[in-house]
């Protein structure tokens, strides 16, 4: 290729837009973090539901660059939504995110495949810088890349960096300030592949390069930004006489590109010594994907992660809860009594507490996931689990979300993002909340202690423990069964592929782990948090308000008793709270749904708890305590006593019979009573349809199962 003649120079500007593109595993995100630090924000690409990460960095005293992290991709075929976004941003100069300079990040230790995307972007004829990342790896493997020659061959500026060690990042920033060559010549002669068609498109549509025209031919309806409806008809009319086989054209293109790439790679890389890192990866693979050790190690890893999230997160969660209790106590002491302070304390602060309390679990889970991804182990987990999971419409990557769901569905659903197939990801998201999460545990413990005798069977098996285990099993079995059913119902948007790179093993990077935690926590707090606080306020309103002056009447009724000394004041307050809850809107809902839940063995008191449980399942215990005027809600003993003493007026037997207890536990096992999960499902799918469907099918499952259980045991 000949040298370029055209240059762009942005050093005089005050702002600059820079896009980052590259293959998955090319270290693009690491470089993005190294360039922008924590000065990042997450938003949406306009009009589409793809997350957009951007960040700022000062290049010199006057020039601030905005870096946009485009979705990782192996090619520029606008097939998936992610790829379409990348293609549109790079091709459409009217797009709000269209960059002045495009940085292509390539894994230098895997140059051949990475150059494929590079070659396509060069053919867009936009100013680019090729960043050869992981130069340290190339050195370790004993290879030498002649970057000057590579730059000459490609006609673009080439900068070598190791983003992990932050080497070369400053040089890259400086390179953005220098004059940049704009690619002038086609990487491959794309015109040779479809000469007639490209000419015809160019005759009606003004495009920058033959390659863009070529893309228009192959994806006429997908690339709508280049043309309006009228133009589309014009183009298809123009192409009328051409026989177009898109698969064939694109195959030819790929083959042509690799022909040129092979020549360039041969020319620019010299192997100096034997490969070291790759043989290390091979050795480790023979253990980690071994038919026995592979699974054994995976189970140990899972066990460790699960234990840590379950137990370690409990401490900070308790601190957070205590902190918010202190804040609300402080607030109610300082603020004048009234509706507004009531809203603040019981609505907003309680809602915020319900959001922040998830942070430790999210942080821990994503710390582990970042480590597993960063080391390359996650790809091996998918590799050894794929066949098993595929039978249920899931994917090798569904294992982590499902298992994490045992701690909490919220971070688990967020972790399903690594599943590339849309269908498999949706199924994973839909069934994860069926896994028995930690919020169900207080409900289960309370009810088990009520209806299951603490006897032992076979000498050492505790009945209560067995029932608890059975409930966890039911969660797991229902999750995979529903997944299997959804596999047949849901239509795939694209064929499910498992064509995936197994990256070489590397030591994890603590900076990456930190960024991941920061990112996910921020995402959860600001996106799902809003919805959770809003629903909390609604729930607070329902349980703290009643139509008319019902609350005043209750207060008045007890006014007399309050003044007499022979009544226990605390007891009176507890009774007032119970009656108020009964009279409130939540109580009215509980009573109005009683006919519906009666076949499950539930009365209106349980009905109220089902409504308030929507804030979080464990709220069941607190609501029961209020209804049974147990006073101190921390004391499960008293709630249990009160619930045990409750007599069913119809049968004269204890209300919490075995039938009611099991029916209730089954209901909690299946029902979608968690607004935080629904909020996260919305956040991850960007469509209210999915949380809605999830709410309905889990509700139906809960209702039918509870009905059967109650009717059988009654």
């Amino acid at each position: 290729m000949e040298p370029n003649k055209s240059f762009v120079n942005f050093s005089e500007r005050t702002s600059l837009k820079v896009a980052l593109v590259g293959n998955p595993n090319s270290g693009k995100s690491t470089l993005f973090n190294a360039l922008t630090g924590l000065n990042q924000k997450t938003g949406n690409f306009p009009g589409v539901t793809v997350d957009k990460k951007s960040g700022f960095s000062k290049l010199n005293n006057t020039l601030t660059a905005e870096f946009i992290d485009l979705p990782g991709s192996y090619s520029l075929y606008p097939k998936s939504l992610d790829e379409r976004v990348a293609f549109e941003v790079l091709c459409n100069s009217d797009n709000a995110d269209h960059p002045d300079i495009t940085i292509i990040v390539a894994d230098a230790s895997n140059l051949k495949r990475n150059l494929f995307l590079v070659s396509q972007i060069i053919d867009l004829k936009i100013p680019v810088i090729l960043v050869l990342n992981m130069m340290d790896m190339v050195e370790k493997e004993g290879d030498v890349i002649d970057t000057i020659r590579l730059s000459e061959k490609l006609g673009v500026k080439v900068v070598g960096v190791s983003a992990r060690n932050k080497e070369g990042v400053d040089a890259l920033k400086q390179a953005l300030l220098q004059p940049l060559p704009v690619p002038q010549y086609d990487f491959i002669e794309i015109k040779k592949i479809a000469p007639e068609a490209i000419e015809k498109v160019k005759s009606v549509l003004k495009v920058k390069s033959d390659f863009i025209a070529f893309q228009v031919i192959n994806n006429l309806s997908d690339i709508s930004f280049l043309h309006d409806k009228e133009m589309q008809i014009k183009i298809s009319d123009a192409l009328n006489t051409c026989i177009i086989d898109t698969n064939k054209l694109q195959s030819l293109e790929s083959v042509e590109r690799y022909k040129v790439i092979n020549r360039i790679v041969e020319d620019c890389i010299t192997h100096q010594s034997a490969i070291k890192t790759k043989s290390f990866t091979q050795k480790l693979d023979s253990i980690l994907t071994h038919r026995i050790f592979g699974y054994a190690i995976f189970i140990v890893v899972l066990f460790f992660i699960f234990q840590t999230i379950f137990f370690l997160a409990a401490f900070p969660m308790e601190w957070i809860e205590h902190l918010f209790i202190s804040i609300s106590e402080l607030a109610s002491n300082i603020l004048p009594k009234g509706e507004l302070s009531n809203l603040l304390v019981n609505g907003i602060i309680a809602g915020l507490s319900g959001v922040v309390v998830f942070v430790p679990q999210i942080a821990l889970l994503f710390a582990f996931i970042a480590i597993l991804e960063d080391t390359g182990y996650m790809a091996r987990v998918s590799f050894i689990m794929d066949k098993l999971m595929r039978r249920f419409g899931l994917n090798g990557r569904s294992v982590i979300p499902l298992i994490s769901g045992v701690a909490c569905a919220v971070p688990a659903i967020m972790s399903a993002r690594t599943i590339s197939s849309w269908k498999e990801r949706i199924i994973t998201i839909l069934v994860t909340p069926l896994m028995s999460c930690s919020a169900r545990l207080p409900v289960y413990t309370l009810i088990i202690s009520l209806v299951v005798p603490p006897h032992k069977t076979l000498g050492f098996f505790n009945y209560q423990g067995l029932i608890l285990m059975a409930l966890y099993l039911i969660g797991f079995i229902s999750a995979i069964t529903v997944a299997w059913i959804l596999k047949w119902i849901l239509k795939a948007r694209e064929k499910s592929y498992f064509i995936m790179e197994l990256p070489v093993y590397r030591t994890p990077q603590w900076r990456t782990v930190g960024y991941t935690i920061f990112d996910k926590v921020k995402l959860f707090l600001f996106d799902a948090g809003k919805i959770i606080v809003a629903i909390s306020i609604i729930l607070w309103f329902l349980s703290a308000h009643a139509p008319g002056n019902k609350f005043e009447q209750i207060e008045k009724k007890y006014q007399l008793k309050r003044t007499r000394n022979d009544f226990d004041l605390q007891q009176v307050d507890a009774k007032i709270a119970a009656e108020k809850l009964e009279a409130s809107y939540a109580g009215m809902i509980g009573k109005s749904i009683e006919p519906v839940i009666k076949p499950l063995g539930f009365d209106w008191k349980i009905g109220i708890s089902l409504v308030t449980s929507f804030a979080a399942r464990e709220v069941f215990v607190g609501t029961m305590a209020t209804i049974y005027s147990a006073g101190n809600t921390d004391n499960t003993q008293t709630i249990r006593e009160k619930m045990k003493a409750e007599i069913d007026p119809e049968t004269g037997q204890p209300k919490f019979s075995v039938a009611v207890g099991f029916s209730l536990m089954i209901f909690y096992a299946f029902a979608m009573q968690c607004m935080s999960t629904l909020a996260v499902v919305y956040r991850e799918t960007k469509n209210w349809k999915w949380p809605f469907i999830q709410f309905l099918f889990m509700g139906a499952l809960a209702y039918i199962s509870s009905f059967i259980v109650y009717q059988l045991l009654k």
Partner: protein
Amino acid sequence: MVKVLKSLAELKIGQSAIIDSFTDKEMALKLLEMGCTPGEVVKLDRIAPLGDPIAISVAGYLLSLRKAEASTVLVSPI
């Protein structure tokens, strides 16, 4: 010599082969962009413990794909 073609899924562990052609056009596109071009040497590196998917060395890296996907690639063993 007459070329004896096999599918990529039929290789034995450690066996190398040269990619010849593809039987599924759509799959071919996906594999081509990942560097599996005709003429490229591939080696079957390992098979997942449950018999599927498989991992191959191609273009200097390790690629995992399902057997069904590998069976659309015709190769001539070397």
